[in-house]
Structures are given as structure tokens and as C-alpha cells.
């Protein structure tokens, strides 16, 4: 019994304490997320049986979690709110927020547990449907509840992509890369240089993001090549070096001169009289510490409302037609090979609609509801004041990344990565080319940080070299390790947990502490110097790296395989236990027989 109730208590307390930090409507949103987490965690604990029985066995846990959440949240609005010197929350918000929070916590957890009665594949599909619903509605709920989390969640999602990319290198191919942020920087700087008014080059974001990914991939190959003969610690040290060099390089690319060597140096050396061909002279590519800003932003549809016809529009239309032709070819291939499942057909229809929506402006209707939906689908230029559009863009990039990475993992190349990770020599005996396999791991891994870099540069409208230093590489590595090396779902959870903690939780904790100290402890300190010291040091953001380190150290001691582990890596970390497990049933069998 205790085993089932304990997660309820843990979740309830964590959720409740979070409401202390955010107050207001937060209890409603936190309750729903708590329910999701609890449900996903609980479902696996039960055997598959009918939904009613499942709900019955999970009910106590769900109720306990919900009750603790509401009790703590009520304590927040009645006592804590006053203690930190804020105006009390409106009674209506308290009542509705707690009701929604309670229903969300109990409802979502029971729903996910009940889904466990279905066969595995169907359960999976339903789970995805529930998660999709949450992902789609989140930014709107966030807006309505005035929590304003979306703009910060977007940063967490950037790190999810980075984690997914690094996971290819570290998790699949087993190559410890301590300088992964270098590729993030390369993606971001490519975007900055190609789409900023500072350089008078303002290419379209939708083109630049692919160039950024390609640049990152190429540099993945170039920086990967010298590390090929190295293993383990030595590989880590060299990648660390590259991670340090790249930001420094960008910091110093402020006076670039490229001359054609033949006409400028070699021929004159032999006395020839040639005019020197200069490609660029004193070109300030990155603007050093100042960074590049502003940077162009994406806009949808690609052909803007009221755009005049001209060369640019012709090119866009040609690209659209090419996209449609490619889609048509794929459709023809699927159709003629007999792959006519309704799901596949719906996929093609959706893709065709997506191409039209992406390229062509849909006329507005003067119906406010329809127009506001159209405003989300085709928002024009993406603005900082509307994080929703950015949110859906990055969700789209993540879905694309997950799709590609899953295909890669299950492909020949994916199996070659795993074999190399296990034993390079044995892999070569199987006919796997270690050079090609490792280089492709670096290149594919870097591609995704290229996407992330391009998005990041456009989202914050500027890039600065200090963002991409060693600490960024380490944070990305933490995301992968915390979530579960080698597991896509794990990395996503790792990125969300670590980065929302960093971006939402710590700043909220800082405000909370500051307000709390101001009303309680600070007035009772007479010495102003001590008062100032307490005030300044009670800032958890100062300790964020300490906290990262602590989290990682605790994880390594308690659950080294991460929150959602990969099977093979769990086996590696628990080798002795696994052997014991296998031997024990064997000896039992022996006795019987």
C-alpha cells in the first residue's frame, strides 16, 4: 500500500510547494501537469486489467496528491501570500484555481492509469493523443491564466533539441563530447551573419535555418575528424578544447581579410606584376563581444499578404511547386506500392495543406474567431510579444527532430552506432566502418544544434559569444544525463525538468525569498552591512551551477541511468545486479528439475 501512496504524497508536496512560488492561477496548471506526471509514472506499476479496477487501485494515490496540492495551495493564498507582503489573491481565482487543479491532478492521473487497460500499442497512441492535447492547449491556458511561462518554456525546448542532438553522439555512438555548444554557436552565428541588417544580408529565416544546420553538420565532420583515433578521456579533452576555441574564434572574427593567395603572394614572389584579388577586407563578421543584433525573424505565410509580384515571389512560387511535386512523387510511390492505408493518405493530405498554408496567404474573413485562429496559423512576422507562434515553431522543429532521430536510431547506421559504442574492434569485424560511423554521429548530432542555434538567434534577435561557452556544453550534457542517456523520451523530460527549473523555478524562488526576507528577517537585523549581505546572497540564481552539480551528483548516486533510462545503458550500469538476476532463476529451475 505504502508503495502506491508514496508517489501521491511526493507529487502533492512538490506541486503544492510550487504554488508557493507562483501563486494566483498556478495551482490549476500545476495540478494538471502533476496529474500527467503521476499518471504516466503510476500506469506502469499495475498489471493490465479492466479500467475500473485500475482506477480503483490508483484512486487513493490520485486523491492524496490532489488533496495535498489543494491544502498547500490554500495555505499559500491564506497565509503565505500575506507573509511575503503581497495582496491576497481574489477569492474567485482561489476557488476556481483550486477546483481545476484538484480535478486536473485526479482526472489526468486516473485517465492515464485507465488507458493502461488497453493493449500496449493502443495505450501508446492514446497517451500520445493526451500529450498532444496538452502541448497544443498549453500556451493558451498559459495566456489565460496570466502565468506567462511560455516564453521561458521555449528556452527549455531549445535545450530539448540540443539534448536530442548530443544524445546521438554521446548516447548512441558513445563518444563523450564536452564541446557540443560549439555547434550551437555555429548554427546561431550562421543565422546571425546571413540575416542581419548589420551586414546588409537579410536572407529569409526559412532558408537560413537549413544553411545553419548544414554548416553545423560540416563543422561536425571537420571537428570530428581529428578525434577519430581517440577514445574515452582523450576524446573528451579534445572536444573540450574545440568547445573553447569556437566561441573565442567568433569573438575575434572582427577584422576578416581574405585575399586570393595566387595573385596576392605567390606570383608577386616570382616578380610577376598582378593585381591582387581581394575577397573581403577588414570585414567585421561577428562584432566581437557586442554580438550581432538585430537578427531577422521568421514570417508566415512565406508569400506575405499583399506582397507585390516580382522576382522574389516567383522564386517562392517555384519552390512551392517543387515541394508539391516532391510530395506528389512520394504519394505516387506509396500509392503504386500498395501502401493505401487511411492514415498514410491523411498524412499526404495534411502535408499538402501544410504546404499551401506555409506558402500562400489565406484571406481574412471578418469573423473574429476564425481570424484569430488564422492569426495563429499565419501570424505574419513572428514577434516577441506573441510567444505562442514561437512555441509552435519550436514544437514543430522538435517533432521533426524526433521523427528523424527515431528513423536514424532504427536504421543500419543506428545499429552501427550501438555496435561501435559497445566494442569498436568487434564492430569492425562485423563490417562496420568505424571512421564513417563516428563522423556521421558527429555530423548528425551537430545538425540538430544547427536548428536550435538558428531558432535561438531569431528568437532572442541577437547573439553574443558568451552564451556558448563551456557551461552551455555542460548544461546540455546534464540534460542528457539527467533524462537518460540514449533515450529520446528521457532526454525530452531531462531538458524540460532541468531548464524549467533554471528558467522558471529559480527566478520565482528568488522573488519569493526576497519578498519573504523583506517582511520577516531583514527588519530584525540592525547592522545594515549584514542586512545587505543577507539580501544579496539569498539569490538562488547565484547558485545555479552549484545546484546543477548537486542534482547531477545526487542522480549519479541514486539513479545513474537517468529519469527514463535506455535499456542497454541500464544494463551497463547495473552489470552485477543483472548477472545475479539471471543466475537466480536459473538455479531455481535446476532445483525443480
Amino acid at each position, binding site marked *: 500500500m505504502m508503495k502506491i501512496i508514496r508517489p501521491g504524497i511526493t507529487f502533492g508536496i512538490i506541486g503544492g510547494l510550487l504554488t508557493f512560488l507562483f501563486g494566483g492561477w498556478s495551482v490549476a496548471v500545476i495540478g494538471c501537469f502533476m496529474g500527467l506526471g503521476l499518471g504516466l509514472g503510476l500506469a506502469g506499476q499495475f498489471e493490465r486489467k479492466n479500467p475500473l479496477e485500475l482506477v480503483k487501485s490508483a484512486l487513493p494515490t490520485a486523491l492524496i496528491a490532489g488533496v495535498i496540492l489543494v491544502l498547500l495551495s490554500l495555505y499559500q493564498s491564506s497565509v503565505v501570500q500575506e507573509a511575503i507582503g503581497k495582496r491576497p489573491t481574489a477569492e474567485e481565482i482561489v476557488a476556481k484555481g483550486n477546483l481545476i487543479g484538484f480535478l486536473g491532478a485526479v482526472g489526468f492521473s486516473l485517465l492515464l492509469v485507465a488507458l493502461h487497460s488497453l493493449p500496449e500499442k493502443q495505450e501508446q497512441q492514446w497517451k500520445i493523443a493526451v500529450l498532444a492535447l496538452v502541448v497544443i492547449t498549453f500556451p493558451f491556458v498559459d495566456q489565460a491564466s496570466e502565468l506567462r511561462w511560455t516564453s521561458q518554456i521555449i528556452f527549455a525546448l531549445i535545450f530539448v533539441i540540443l539534448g536530442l542532438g548530443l544524445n546521438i553522439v554521446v548516447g548512441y555512438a558513445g563518444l563523450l563530447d564536452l564541446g557540443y555548444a560549439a555547434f550551437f554557436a555555429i548554427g546561431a552565428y550562421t543565422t546571425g551573419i546571413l540575416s542581419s541588417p548589420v551586414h546588409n544580408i537579410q536572407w529569409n529565416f526559412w532558408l537560413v535555418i537549413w544553411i545553419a544546420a548544414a554548416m553545423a553538420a560540416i563543422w561536425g565532420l571537420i571537428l570530428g575528424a581529428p578525434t577519430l583515433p581517440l577514445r574515452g578521456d582523450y576524446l573528451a579533452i579534445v572536444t573540450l578544447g574545440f568547445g573553447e576555441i569556437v566561441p573565442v574564434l567568433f569573438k575575434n572574427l572582427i577584422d576578416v581579410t581574405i585575399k586570393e593567395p595566387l595573385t596576392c603572394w605567390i606570383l608577386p614572389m616570382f616578380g610577376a606584376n598582378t593585381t591582387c584579388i581581394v575577397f573581403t577586407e577588414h570585414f567585421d563578421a561577428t562584432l566581437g563581444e557586442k554580438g550581432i543584433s538585430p537578427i531577422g525573424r521568421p514570417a508566415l505565410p512565406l508569400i506575405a499578404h499583399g506582397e507585390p509580384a516580382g522576382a522574389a515571389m516567383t522564386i517562392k512560387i517555384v519552390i512551392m511547386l517543387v515541394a508539391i511535386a516532391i510530395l506528389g512523387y512520394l504519394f505516387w510511390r506509396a500509392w503504386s506500392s500498395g501502401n493505401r492505408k487511411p492514415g498514410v493518405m491523411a498524412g499526404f493530405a495534411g502535408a499538402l495543406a501544410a504546404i499551401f498554408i506555409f506558402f500562400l496567404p489565406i484571406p481574412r474573413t471578418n469573423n473574429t474567431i476564425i481570424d484569430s485562429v488564422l492569426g495563429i496559423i499565419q501570424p505574419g512576422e513572428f514577434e516577441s510579444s506573441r510567444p505562442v507562434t514561437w512555441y509552435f515553431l519550436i514544437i514543430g522543429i522538435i517533432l521533426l527532430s524526433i521523427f528523424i532521430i527515431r528513423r536514424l536510431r532504427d536504421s*543500419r547506421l543506428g*545499429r*552501427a552506432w*550501438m*555496435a561501435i559504442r*559497445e*566494442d569498436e*574492434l*568487434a*564492430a*569492425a*569485424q*562485423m*563490417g*562496420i*566502418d*568505424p571512421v564513417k560511423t563516428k563522423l556521421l554521429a558527429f555530423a548528425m548530432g551537430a545538425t540538430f544544434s544547427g536548428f536550435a542555434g538558428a531558432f535561438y538567434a531569431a528568437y532572442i534577435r541577437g547573439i553574443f559569444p558568451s552564451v556558448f561557452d563551456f557551461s552551455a556544453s555542460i548544461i546540455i550534457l546534464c540534460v542528457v544525463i539527467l533524462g537518460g542517456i540514449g533515450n529520446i523520451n528521457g532526454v525530452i523530460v531531462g531538458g524540460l525538468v532541468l531548464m524549467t527549473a533554471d528558467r522558471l523555478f529559480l527566478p520565482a524562488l528568488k522573488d519569493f525569498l526576497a519578498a519573504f526576507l523583506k517582511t520577516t528577517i531583514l527588519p530584525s537585523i540592525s547592522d545594515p552591512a549584514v542586512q545587505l549581505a543577507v539580501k544579496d546572497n539569498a539569490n538562488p540564481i547565484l547558485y545555479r551551477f552549484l545546484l546543477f552539480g548537486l542534482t547531477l551528483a545526487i542522480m549519479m548516486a541514486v539513479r545513474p541511468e537517468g529519469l527514463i533510462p535506455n535499456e*542497454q*545503458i541500464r*544494463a*551497463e550500469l547495473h*552489470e552485477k545486479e*543483472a*548477472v545475479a538476476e*539471471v543466475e537466480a532463476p536459473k538455479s531455481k529451475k535446476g532445483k525443480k528439475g
Partner: protein
Amino acid sequence: MLELKDVNTYYGNIHALKGISLTVNDGEIVTLIGSNGAGKSTTLRTIQGLIKPRSGSVVLDGVELQKLPAHEVATLGVAQSPEGRMIFPRMTVLENLEMGAYVRRDLSSFQNDLEHAFTLFPRLKERISQKGGTLSGGEQQMLAMARAMMAKPKILLLDEPSMGLAPILVELIFDIIKKLNQEGTTILLVEQNALMALSIAHRGYVLQTGEVVLADKAEKLLKDPMVQKTYLGVE
């Protein structure tokens, strides 16, 4: 089919193979016997391209293997069940066997070959989703052999398949080697168990400190006084 000519292989300045020449013809079992450190494993490693010989040539069906990296040699049809097994410990039995078939582009007969491997090694079928590293020594040996078979190689290199196995298992393994050969696989078999090896092989080579000291039909080697004294323990 496979021909080594005057092969010299070094580990740093240790001269491990001193001008080895040998041939394996299509459909044969050829065995390489010799005591510890004679250079048997080094010969197999040289054939597979895991170490490069300093001079001499290794030719498989007209292709010079000594110039190629190990993974290309594997692609050309050389598979090895290595000494110490070198299976993938954290992959399941099935995944190990799939890795064995990695060199094959055409996987249409994969299921058949898998079934065939399981008829030869029924024990592996029972352990199909168990991690390689948790198998017993004998099972790991079977897995290494089955994995090499899955590549459908032109020539199968077996490095001491009977090492460390119980006598019953040794007989079983040699039976399987014979069966494989009858099905058409060419085999180069390295063994310390000279009696067993010579009793199933067509021809044999005796290796001593990196040199071939004897080469003959297997039944003749069995009667050779030097072989009897040194490797068969007959006084």
C-alpha cells in the same frame, strides 16, 4: 581461395609471424595447430586486417586483403569467431546475431538463416532476448560462432572454439563445425586441441614461434611422430 604468402607481422618490434605461407581451398576445413604464443591468433588477425603485415600478401579470390581495413575485409566475405569471443555484451542474443548479418545488403533470407542457426544452436533460441554478457562461457562461444555464420562468409575463421569448454560441449562444437563444412562453408580452424582439430580437418599446418614447421594432410599429421609427441601427448 585464400592464400597467405610469406607474411611477416610485427607487434612493435616483436616479430610474431616470420614468413608464413598457407592456402585454404574452397570447401575445406584447414586447421592451424601450435602451442601458446605460436602466432595462431595473429595469423587470423592478419587475415582479417586487424593488424597489417609488414610484408607478404593475403589474397582472397584474387583480392589483396592486406591493403584493406578490417571492415572492408569483412564485407568481402571473411568472418571470424574471435578468441575471447568478443560478443556485444549489452546487446541481446538476437541483436548480436543481427549485427553478424550487418555486412549483408540482401536480408531476404535473414529469417531462414536465423532459424538455421537456431537448429544448430538450440540453446541460443532459448536465450534469444537475454543480454550477451549474461550468457555462460559455452553459450557465448556458440553465440560468437552463430554470429559469424550470420554473415554468410566465404571463409569462416574460428579461433579456439573449444577453449574453456566442458568435454561434452567440445564434442558438440566440433560436430557443428563439421556440419557447417558439409553445408559448404570453408573453414580455417585454430585449435590447441590438436587431436579433435586434426580428426575433422582435411589439412593442417603446425605453427611454432611464428613459423610453419609442418604442413600436410590431417590424417598424416595425426601419425607424424613430432606432432604426436608435442601436441597429442603420445610417447
